[in-house]
């Protein structure tokens, strides 16, 4: 049990042990316990079974006995009943009479009646008998029966009759065919007083009662059952488990029954009529010749024992399980220490030295555990000590390694005494490109330039290092790939305690980048200097503490001061123009106080007295919350300033020109208003006063048309004076301008000079005002000079500049354009007014003419009619013909006049334009021409027609004329076909009226639209020839056009073009 040692791993051994202990215990217990329980259980079971058997048998027997007794009792009662009945004096008496009476006689019947009455009480359900019979002794005839069907039958062969003659008799049970069921009869002899045998009284026993007796159950059992069979095994009562009453006709041949009818009684365990094993009690009743079977299912009988058996089994099983469990638990408890120990050992094996076996018991196991713990503790201590030592060693190594390895920017390596490389670091690799493997062992002159090596530089360095202790130099070295780099090298000689040279250490730094940076800085410095010079930007610096002011060369240049001069802040500020000094002073102060930077453009006066503009910028350097240094730049921006000023002035000029143009545009076409406006605006823009002259119609004089002076009094005065003197075109400065066609600038002029130029005649004009500066500009229109505009400065010291002259010319050009436009416009207006007037006159005339002409015409017609009517008979044929011609002629005149009237009305009766649906208008026209269409068989096809802005009545007239014409000028051989359609083309629409009539020769296209122009005689076609002229007039009024095309003899197409929309102008114009 304690074999811990061995080759096997501790684990499995202990496991096995563990199992063994628990297992063994459990096994033993199980075996022992099971055997015990099984044995006991079996005994108990069999015992109970036997007991049950006995009990069941006893019960059966007692039930059988009880039933038997009941049966016997019942039989006995039946017998007594029948005997009593048979012996009853009444019955005897009646029987005597019945026998002696003649059959069928009233006597007989009465007696019969009485007998039956006597019998009644003992028959029926719950009575012993079902029916009674009285059988005559001699013949065996049934003389009286409670069942009338029996009367008259003969029973002489039946046993109960034969036996019943002699004595009280109960038959066997038998199956009665007539009744259809088992039956039993009791009989008794009926003996007269004298001892004569009268007959036999037989009664059929109610076997239901018997059934009841047999089937009576206690209710305590489930499967109890009882039945009777007769001597041949015929079932007499209904067994419990057979419901079919037909079974009563059959015999039962079970073992129990067989034994029974053999005359035996007993109890067996056998299969019953169902095939179920039952405990069966069978009793033979010899007196009755019946077999009584009482049984109970075996299963039920032994039921309790079976359940008992099951219970026992369950309990045993449970007990067994509990026992096993208990065993396991106990075993585990006792093997735990071992397991703990086992775990500890295992952990130890794995190297865990901190595991403590927790076993507290005082037995062998406990002692073992304690020893184990001690061992573990000591091992642990040893290990810890060793680890510490190791770590310390590692740390120091590590530090060293880090140092050397970590440095990537420096090459650190060791040389031996001969100068060969014995160690290498990543820095060295990085800088030189050599890997440790390839360089260790080589001489360190590998890094030196070829020339240096030739000169013996490496050896020299080593020698110096040995002597001085170390050697340091900046110089070019070469990498593995051949590229050179600037290196800073320190070589140190290493001596041991004895002073012996052990080797050298070398520290090299790649300073190529640094050197390059230094160079770049120098370059940019130079560049900055140059740039400053070129852009005229200088730099300055002020040390706030020491108040030292430093200027670059450029700043000196800007100030036009000798560069060697030393200046202070105050002097520097003084260079600024007086008005600028406060600003710069404040900026500097702000810089000092709060570090605020500045960027100002200020005027400055150089040492040479030049007034220039400078841009001064400054910023502050702060340390510890105070400004320690101010620095900045300065630039000469004079040029730029001037350029800006130019630009500004130009922009201003441009704006003024634009405004001027705007003003001109707003003046509504009135020449004079335009001129006045120009004079005023020019004065406002250039000043101080303006006067405009226009060349007179005859071209000889320059007439003043407009002038302007801010002072109204002066203005008036000027006007008066100019009104009095007429300036000739060839006088004064005018000729010069006419010749050059350009503006004349006299920036400064004196009165004398003017007087010298112009005629004395004009000198009075000069009294108006003094003129100090003068510009005269020509007004040009369509290449000709139409006038002159003069501006004058009346104040001195403000001369006009060439820019002013150019500006004025621009103004004047615009003015000239506006003026010519204005003039054109007013001319146009005047002309239009005249035209309108003449049109109106014409229309009135046409109207009145045609109107008044009609009156005499009417008279002519009327009286010629009257003449024809009244005196027509008095005239001959010729006379009447003359009258007719007169009438016709005046008729024609009538038509002509009304056409003329209509023609004139196109304008006079014109309505304003409104929305007109041309399609609807055409339909109206067609409906109004209905009669003519029908008459000619004509058809009009109307296509799409647009809706346009037009005079509705006139549209109707237009279309009526066109369609009417198409009908009028039809081809005589065919029905007129007219197509009217329209198409919209953008802002216009085209209406087409096409017919298949006679057409016209296209060379007469112009003529047909003229008033009263006809292409046919009046005999051929009626009409005055004004229709198409009216059409044209209407169309023209609508700003449209009309034309036509035609093929003679085939048809014509009239094309009307009309705008969709009419302008909002005066619509009543022709």
């Amino acid at each position, binding site marked *: 049990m304690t074999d811990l040692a061995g080759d096997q791993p501790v684990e499995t051994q202990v496991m096995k042990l563990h199992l063994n202990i628990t297992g063994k215990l459990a096994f033993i217990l199980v075996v022992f316990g099971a055997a015990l329980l099984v044995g006991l259980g079996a005994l108990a079971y069999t015992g109970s079974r036997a007991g049950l058997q006995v009990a069941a048998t006893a019960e059966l027997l007692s039930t059988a006995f009880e039933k038997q007794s009941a049966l016997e009792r019942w039989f006995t009662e039946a017998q007594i009943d029948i005997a009593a009945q048979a012996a009853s004096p009444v019955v005897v008496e009646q029987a005597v009479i019945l026998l002696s009476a003649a059959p069928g006689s009233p006597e007989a019947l009465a007696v019969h009646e009485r007998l039956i009455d006597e019998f009644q009480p003992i028959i029926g359900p719950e009575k012993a008998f079902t029916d009674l019979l009285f059988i005559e002794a001699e013949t065996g005839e049934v003389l009286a029966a409670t069942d009338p069907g029996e009367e008259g039958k003969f029973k002489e062969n039946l046993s109960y009759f034969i036996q019943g003659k002699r004595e009280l008799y109960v038959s066997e049970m038998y199956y009665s065919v007539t009744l259809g069921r088992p039956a039993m009869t009791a009989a008794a002899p009926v003996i007269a007083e004298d001892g004569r045998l009268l007959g036999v009284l037989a009664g059929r026993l109610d076997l239901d009662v018997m059934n009841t007796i047999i089937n009576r159950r206690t209710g305590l059992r489930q499967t109890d059952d009882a039945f009777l069979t007769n001597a041949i095994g015929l079932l007499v009562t209904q067994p419990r488990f057979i419901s079919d009453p037909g079974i009563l006709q059959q015999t039962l041949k079970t073992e129990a029954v067989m034994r029974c009818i053999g005359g035996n009684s007993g109890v067996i365990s056998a299969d019953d009529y169902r095939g179920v094993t039952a405990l069966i009690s069978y009793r033979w009743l010899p007196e009755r010749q019946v077999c009584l079977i009482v049984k109970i299912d075996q299963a039920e009988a032994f039921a309790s024992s079976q359940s008992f058996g099951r219970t026992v089994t369950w309990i045993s099983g449970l007990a067994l399980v509990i026992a096993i469990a208990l065993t396991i638990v106990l075993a585990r408890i006792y093997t735990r220490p071992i397991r703990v120990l086992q775990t500890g050992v295992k952990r130890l094996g794995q190297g865990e030295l901190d595991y403590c076996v927790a076993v507290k018991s005082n037995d062998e196991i406990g002692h073992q555990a304690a020893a184990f713990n001690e061992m573990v503790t000591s091992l642990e201590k040893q290990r810890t000590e060793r680890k510490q030592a190791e770590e310390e060693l590692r740390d120091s190594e590590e530090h060293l390694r880090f140092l050397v390895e970590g440095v990537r920017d420096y090459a650190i390596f060791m040389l031996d005494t001969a100068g060969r490389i014995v160690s290498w670091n990543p820095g060295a690799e990085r800088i030189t490109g050599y890997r440790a493997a390839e360089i260790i062992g080589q001489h360190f002159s590998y890094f030196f330039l070829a020339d240096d090596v030739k000169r013996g530089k490496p050896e020299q360095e080593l020698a110096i290092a040995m002597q001085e202790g170390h050697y340091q130099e900046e110089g070019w070295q070469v990498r593995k790939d051949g590229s050179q780099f600037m290196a800073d090298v320190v070589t140190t000689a290493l001596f041991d305690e004895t002073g012996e040279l052990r080797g050298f250490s070398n520290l090299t730094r790649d300073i190529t980048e640094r050197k390059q940076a230094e160079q770049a800085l120098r370059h940019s410095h130079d560049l900055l200097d140059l740039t400053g010079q070129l852009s005229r930007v200088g730099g300055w610096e002020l040390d706030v503490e020491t108040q030292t002011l430093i200027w670059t060369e450029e700043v000196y240049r800007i100030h036009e001061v000798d560069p060697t001069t030393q200046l202070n802040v105050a002097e520097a500020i003084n260079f600024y123009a007086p008005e600028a000094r406060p600003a710069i002073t404040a900026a500097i102060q702000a810089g000092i106080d709060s570090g605020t930077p500045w960027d100002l453009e200020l005027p400055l006066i150089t040492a040479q007295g030049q007034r220039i503009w400078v841009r001064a910028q400054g910023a502050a350097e702060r340390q510890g919350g105070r400004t320690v240094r101010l620095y900045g730049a300065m630039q000469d921006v004079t040029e730029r300033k001037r350029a800006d000023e130019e630009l500004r002035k130009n922009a201003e000029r441009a704006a003024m020109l634009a405004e001027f143009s705007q003003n001109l545009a707003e003046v509504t076409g009135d020449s004079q208003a335009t001129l006045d406006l120009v004079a005023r605006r020019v004065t406002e823009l250039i000043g101080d006063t303006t006067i405009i002259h226009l060349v007179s119609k005859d071209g000889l004089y320059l007439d003043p048309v407009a002038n302007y002076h801010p002072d109204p009094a002066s203005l008036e005065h000027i006007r008066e004076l100019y009104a009095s003197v007429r300036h000739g075109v060839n006088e004064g400065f005018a000729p010069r301008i006419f010749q050059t066609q350009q503006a004349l600038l006299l920036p400064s002029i004196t009165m004398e000079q003017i007087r010298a130029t112009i005629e004395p005649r004009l000198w009075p004009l000069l009294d108006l005002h003094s003129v100090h500066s003068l510009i005269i500009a020509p007004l040009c229109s369509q290449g000709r000079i139409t006038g002159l505009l003069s501006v004058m400065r009346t104040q001195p010291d403000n001369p006009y500049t060439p820019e002013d002259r150019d500006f004025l010319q621009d103004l004047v050009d615009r003015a000239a354009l506006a003026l010519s436009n204005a003039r054109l416009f007013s001319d146009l207006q005047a002309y239009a007014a005249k035209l309108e007037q003449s049109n109106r006159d014409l229309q009135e005339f046409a109207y009145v003419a045609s109107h008044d002409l009609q*009156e005499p015409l009417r008279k002519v017609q009327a009286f010629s009619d*009257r003449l024809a009517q009244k005196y027509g008979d008095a005239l001959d044929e010729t006379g009447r013909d003359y009258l007719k011609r007169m009438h016709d002629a005046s008729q024609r005149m009538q038509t002509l006049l009304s056409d003329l009237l209509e023609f004139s009305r196109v304008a006079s009766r014109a309505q304003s334009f409104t929305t007109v649906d041309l399609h609807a208008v055409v339909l109206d026209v067609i409906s109004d021409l209905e009669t003519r269409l029908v008459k000619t068989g004509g058809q009009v096809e109307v296509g799409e027609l647009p809706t346009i802005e037009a005079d509705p009545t006139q549209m109707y007239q237009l279309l009526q004329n066109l369609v009417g014409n198409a009908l009028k000028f039809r081809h005589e051989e065919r029905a007129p076909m007219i197509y009217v359609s329209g198409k919209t083309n953008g802002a216009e629409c085209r209406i087409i009226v096409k017919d298949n009539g006679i057409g016209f020769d296209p060379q007469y296209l112009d003529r047909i639209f003229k008033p009263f122009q006809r292409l046919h005689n009046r005999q051929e076609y009626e009409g005055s020839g004004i229709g198409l002229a009216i059409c044209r007039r209407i169309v023209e009024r609508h700003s449209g056009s009309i034309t036509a095309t035609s093929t003679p003899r085939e048809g014509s197409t009239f094309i009307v073009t009309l705008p969709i929309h009419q302008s909002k102008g005066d619509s009543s114009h022709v």
Partner: protein
Amino acid sequence: MFETVQPAIFLMAENDPDDRLLVKEAFQESRVVNNLHFVEDGVELLDYLRQQGKYANPENFPTPDLILLDPNMPRKDGREALEEIKADPLLRHLPVVVLTTSKTEEDILRSYDIGAASFITKPVTFEALVEAVKGLGKYGVQIVRLPSKDT
């Protein structure tokens, strides 16, 4: 109780002698049994209606039942006369038919504006004139019954 149909009295104000003649003939042709009187201008018309001047005698110059008026007459033209008639309470009730030569609507409207009972455009043919007159005649028959007769 039968009332004899008294012929209606017509008064025509027309300056044109031809027109006067034609109308007279038309009346005769139409066999309208009416009396037709003429005046030649607006002044005469008003004198007639007021039974003044040479028209003082009502026997010769009875108050008409219907006035035919040419709007265009010298001295006082038809329009003026019509205005006066309609302004005068005694004459207002007299129906006035304006005979125009022109079909212009302006004339028509103007006529309506100042209370013409109706207008007729002077027909061109004589037949038409006769028809127009016949129409008047029917108009005239009805006039007879107007209350104006009784006052």
